[in-house]
């Protein structure tokens, strides 16, 4: 909200620069989009990352949304981003592995999409290999198992020959010439508007509702170094992202078929590390982990309780690995689960702005 004047100024400036090549009567100045940042985020967190080269506009966000849901981006017009990122699942896929145009499933679970502008290191995917949302969006279009194109050129051609897209790009970016850079900019703008900050726990933090005794107990377990100790990686009431967005090995495997972060950094100390997911919206994002190996939250809690597997890169925060885990009793497990579910935000999955 604070950026409003800056954004408007920049947009105007950017537009003015671009528009020098156009005839003046074609000029349309896109309207800056005012990101609705939850008060809790404003008070607790640093500002979201919005690149100056891609500030949000009403036209850009609307265009990005249309592209996100449009099968036109796939090689055979059968799949869209939204095929594997479903709004009702907090923009992830209920299948363990998603299938793209080929129908052949990939090897990682899809990821939910929300609060992406608060991923401060700006590293995306489970292994963090894409820097920036604009760069991230370049990949699925030409991934053989996702939208299946050999290259971006045919997509750029399809969009340029479309009866509506050129005008929409003109309105959003001041040019009718559609390039992959502008497509990914528009999609990234839409993705940055996907904010989830209205869970029951958020309302509790804002002082408008109370937690049940069970949820309170669950929070205490989450925050207790002697029991759950989840907060060192998954946020806390003062970090309402409910993730640190850092890379850890949380004790899933003894050896690694998927090296994760290690394949990106080339450092063997990073093998088997994946980015901590946010614990928001778990009610909608099953199955869990980078390979979707756990179908239920109970499975996840049992993993941390008694299922930890030692390996060369396990995080020392998995302190009780030699005893299999933090050994929660059945009551603690139930309480922890109740607390975790209080982080889910029905208003996010039902937000009409985010649904086609």
């Amino acid at each position: 909200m604070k950026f409003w004047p800056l954004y408007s100024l920049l947009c105007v400036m950017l537009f003015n620069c671009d528009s020098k090549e156009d005839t003046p009567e074609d000029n349309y100045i896109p309207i800056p989009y005012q990101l609705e940042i939850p008060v809790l985020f404003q008070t607790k967190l640093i500002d979201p990352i919005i690149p100056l080269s891609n500030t949000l506009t009403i036209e850009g966000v609307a265009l990005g949304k249309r592209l996100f849901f449009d099968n036109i981006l796939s090689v055979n017009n059968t799949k869209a981003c939204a095929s594997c990122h479903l709004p009702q699942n907090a923009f992830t896929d209920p299948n363990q592995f998603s299938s793209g145009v080929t129908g052949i499933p990939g090897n990682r679970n899809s990821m939910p999409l929300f609060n992406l502008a608060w991923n401060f290191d700006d590293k995306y995917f489970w292994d963090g290999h894409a820097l920036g949302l604009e760069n991230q969006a370049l990949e699925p279009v030409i991934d053989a198992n996702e939208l299946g194109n050999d290259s971006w050129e045919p997509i750029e051609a399809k969009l340029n020959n479309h009866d509506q897209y050129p005008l929409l790009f003109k309105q959003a970016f001041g040019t009718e010439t559609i390039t992959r850079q502008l497509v990914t900019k528009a999609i990234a703008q839409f993705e940055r508007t996907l904010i989830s900050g209205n869970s029951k726990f958020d309302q509790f933090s804002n002082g408008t509702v109370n937690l049940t005794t069970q949820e309170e107990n669950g929070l205490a377990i989450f925050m207790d170094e002697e029991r759950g100790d989840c907060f060192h990686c998954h946020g806390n009431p003062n970090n309402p992202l409910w993730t640190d967005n850092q890379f850890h090995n949380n004790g899933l495997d003894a050896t690694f078929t998927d090296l994760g972060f290690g394949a990106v950094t080339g450092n063997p100390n990073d093998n088997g590390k994946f980015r901590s997911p946010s614990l928001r919206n778990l009610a909608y994002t099953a199955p869990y982990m980078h390979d979707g190996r756990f179908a239920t939250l109970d499975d996840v809690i049992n993993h941390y309780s008694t299922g930890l597997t030692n390996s060369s890169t396990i995080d020392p925060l998995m302190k009780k690995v030699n005893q299999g885990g933090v050994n929660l009793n059945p009551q603690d497990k139930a309480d922890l689960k109740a607390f975790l579910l209080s982080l889910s935000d029905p208003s996010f999955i039902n937000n009409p702005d985010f649904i086609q």
Partner: protein
Amino acid sequence: MKKIVSLLTLALLIIACNEDIDDTTITIPEVTFNFTHHWDSTFINSTNLETETLTNANGEVITINRIRYLTSHFELTNLAGETYIFEGYKLTDLSDDATYNFTPVVNTIPSGTYNLKFVWGFNADDNTDGIYQDLNSESWNWPAMLGGGYHFLQFDGMYNVDTANPSPFNFHNGTARVSDGVFEDNFAVITFDAPITISNNTTIEIKMNIAELFKNPNTWDLNVLDTPLMPNYDAQKMMQQNILSVFSLGETTQ
């Protein structure tokens, strides 16, 4: 408060000076703090943090996964007893060399001879739960059930790595819990006897010897005190004692 005002005035002066086109500018020294990290004689930075195999005073062989720590309230006091307080705090992450330097926003100070002092963690006034957005964003918070505020240190690693059974340790320091709902401040004031002469822009090196955390006055036995240590009052107080010998002054460059 007075001193903060004087620093601000100095800053304004500098700005005013810089705007002068003629060459009558008096230079007012600027101070930067540079932390270097060591395990006794082994120099540690992001490149070898996770690869060194080290032995602590009690004889356990350890490897390190991460070290992050908080320092604040840097003060320089001159021979006349005037104290200059530098606003701000510093979270150092050993995996990121870019965090080793601390340049306070207002960092000018008159030439003179000074003694340095800073706070390990946050003092009671500063350690208010949840108020620092940058530290919240780093998940640096200390649980409310342990008194809230912020971590002072997060030091995670494995010990007995020379045996068949390596085990994790989580050497985390912050407010000490005496009993349910009763908490005790646990910050430390780090002072240095050696005077620092400042006549020009100055970088003050502060050396952190990580091995001292396990050494002095309490020889730390990780087999007994590995994890959880955050809710352990005695462990927290032993850390507060051991921290006093961790820092020493290195080179001052101007």
